[in-house]
């Protein structure tokens, strides 16, 4: 027998995930424009690995395969991970990271809805710790590299590790803007001078900042479509801005301006697409603000004082651990149990 309610809003997990995937498209398009089509190879590779691992794990766990393969959640993990990995990374890096994300970080925790950690970020963390060298194969943006590889050259390198004759890896890849900044600051150069280098654009890295604009656009769509709430992106970017701003105001020679932090690395992607993963983020609005603010603080500290190229992934994972506690201590008052309580009127 079916019980009330007998009607429901036409929506589904698959549709929500699909719309998040669509929201990534503008950023990916700009990525291709500035860095070549190699990223599409990683995304495809990650997607296939994710679906394959998902199907295998579902079968091993004796769960229905078809409905879960169609929920698009594995694809979303795959895309987010692929976007965090250098496009010229060898094919097996993408496969290992994605398989780990789906099998270990997702299914060993109980599958969809039960993972404590963001699977894509777990995949990233595994790769950056295990294969730090391969994780530096970032392509130089269009117009900046000594040599630009064609699509087939990129494919050849990803799958066979072979570069065209007389081309070195250093000629086609370069350090990320965040890395470059860190290295040069260590060399004692002031921020202003470093930012004059050609890899920097108006706000962040040349090319990279445009990709960030794309993700920002997609993120605003997610907000408008009410797939995510404003709390996490606003608290994350706001805290990052404030913290970076304070450091910058105190010492402009050593601490870069806050907008640089927004438009470099995975800050925008993280604010709208990674930290907002509903499964691994808090369910209360107040909790979301605390979670995102904590993540922003950690991102900044890892970027400035840590040894890793970006801080978003570890900040996410560290804050993921805190989620149950945050949720427990940010429970909102229920109707009829407000402090304003007994028959008190408040504003409409």
């Amino acid at each position: 027998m079916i019980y009330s309610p007998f009607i429901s809003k036409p929506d589904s997990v698959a549709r929500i995930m699909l719309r998040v995937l669509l929201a990534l498209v503008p950023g990916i398009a700009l990525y291709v424009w500035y860095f070549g089509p190699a990223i599409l190879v990683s995304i495809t590779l990650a997607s296939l690995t994710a679906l394959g691992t998902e199907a295998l794990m579902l079968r091993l766990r004796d769960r229905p395969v078809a409905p879960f393969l169609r929920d698009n959640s594995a694809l979303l993990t795959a895309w987010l991970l692929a976007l965090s990995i250098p496009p010229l990374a060898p094919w097996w890096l993408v496969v290992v990271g994605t398989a780990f994300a789906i099998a270990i970080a997702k299914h060993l925790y109980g599958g969809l809805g039960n993972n404590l950690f963001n699977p894509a970020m777990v995949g990233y963390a595994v790769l950056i710790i295990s294969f730090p060298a391969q994780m530096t194969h970032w392509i130089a943006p269009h117009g900046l590299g000594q040599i630009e590889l064609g699509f087939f050259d990129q494919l050849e390198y990803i799958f066979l590790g072979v570069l065209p004759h007389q081309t070195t890896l250093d000629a086609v890849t370069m350090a990320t803007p965040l890395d470059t900044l860190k290295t040069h600051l260590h060399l004692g150069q002031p921020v202003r001078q470093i930012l004059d280098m050609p890899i920097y654009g108006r706000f962040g890295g040349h090319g990279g900042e445009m990709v960030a604009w794309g993700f920002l656009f997609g993120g605003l769509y997610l907000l408008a479509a009410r797939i995510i709430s404003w709390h996490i992106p606003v608290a994350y970017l706001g805290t990052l801005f404030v913290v970076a701003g304070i450091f910058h105001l105190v010492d402009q020679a050593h601490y870069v301006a806050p907008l640089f932090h927004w438009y470099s690395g995975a800050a925008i992607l993280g604010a709208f697409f990674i930290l907002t993963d509903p499964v691994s983020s808090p369910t209360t609005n107040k909790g979301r603000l605390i979670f995102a603010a904590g993540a922003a603080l950690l991102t900044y500290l890892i970027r400035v004082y840590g040894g890793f190229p970006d801080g978003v992934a570890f900040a996410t994972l560290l804050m993921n651990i805190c989620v149950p506690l945050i949720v427990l201590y940010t429970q909102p008052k229920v109707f009829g149990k407000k402090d304003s309580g007994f028959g008190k009127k408040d504003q409409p």
Partner: protein
Amino acid sequence: MRKLYRFHGGIHPPSNKMQSTRNGIARAPLPAKLIVPLQQHAGEAAKPVVQAGDHVLKGQLIGMPDGFVSSAVHAPTSGTIAAIDLQLIAHPSGLPNLCATLIPDGKDEWVEIKPVDYRSHSSDDLQQLLRMAGVVGLGGAAFPSDIKLRTGKQKITTLILNGAECEPYITCDDMLMRERAAEIVQGAEILRFMLDATEVLIGVEDNKPEAIAALQQAISADSAVLEQNRRHEVVAIPTIYPGGGAKQLIRVITGLEVPSGKLPTDVGVQCFNVATAWSVYRALVYGEPLLSRVITITGNVRHAQNYEVLIGTPIDELVALSEALPDTDHYIMGGPMMGMPLPAVHVPAVKATNCIIAASAKLFPPPPPAMPCIRCTRCVEVCPAELQPQDLYWFAQSKEFGRAQVFSLFDCIECGACSYVCPSHIPLVQYYRFSKSEIRAREHDKQLADQARERHEFREHRIEREKREKADKLAAREKATQTAKLASSQPSATQPTELEASRAHIREVAQSGTEPNATEIDIP
């Protein structure tokens, strides 16, 4: 314009009310047999006062209220009582209940009825009359109205009539307000008089402009109301489900938040459905007990329509009037959000029946298989009780009922908004109903166990005390003989302290037995 307030959340399901408001209320024909359940209200069932074979007149008492929360049941028409036995009724349990089966004689002959001038009676007298007239809340819960009017020392400032009718499909209140606004307003005035309230606010969702206009006109035309310096007002409230929930409606109209576990009367408000006001009016001004009500027949039918239906009319006859379409496969009593599936279509219409929806797989497609909760919190966004439905679901799944109670499970009004928006298609409300019934069952078991333990402990204590007293007596006697020998008497101090100790112990046991535990009692 009155300042309105908001309640949290809510949804906008398709209203589907147009179908059944095209025509006015029609009178359903007299059926061949009426099955009148003796329990149509919350509380204790009425006690049958007629026997099989008796001839009864229309409006004659057939069920006497039995217990504090109970209400009378009457013969809806004249005829012969064919049987008083167990019949299937519209109850979620699907269990049969005691019913009087009445075969109408077709004469529709009234018992002697006495109109009452309510102004010359005390509220207590009127409450008794309403109880004997079988007036219960017609909004769906069928709570005896006389109890809600028994406010004791509590001062009621505002009487709210609930004409929100926020559930999709249902239009019985809408049509009643359109057609019988004057009688509703007069019923409201009687209720106001009984409660000694200062104002009457009739809350109607703004998707019913005809009803609002009719009520406004009725108020401005009502001389009794005019004399009271316009204490009546129609308040158009935004159409948002569940705006017709009593606590939500009170919030919207007055801004007051009825505290959890309390009643509206605790904040000086009492709330009645508009149809209840209408039946109060009929019961006192005409002396007619509650024999019929308006029911919406809609859904998968050819002619959706509101009918005035005698209580006890088999629902299949009503459905036949509206011509249910061939692919109809089940029926829902109430609306699509909170209604219940009927165990069978031949069950009788009762006082709580506001709507019958013929349902088909096309009209209400079965939900796709449930996916895991992804904690998207769409349910949190729509919950009018401001709960965390995803957590309550989690606790229900893991049977952590204690945690569910801490997370205010019993503040859930089961409106179904969470299930409606859930992208994982989880039947959330079912989980909450399950948790609540489990907790109630456990509380009941615990109470019984507590009582047994209490009795046992008391008995043990008594036996021990008696033993001790005997020993003390013996000792005292021995002492007395000894002291008598010594010719010096000492008062025995031991006995009174013993007694006191035992009294204190009994008090302790009694207190621990009745100590309120974590469970909260759900207020109907």
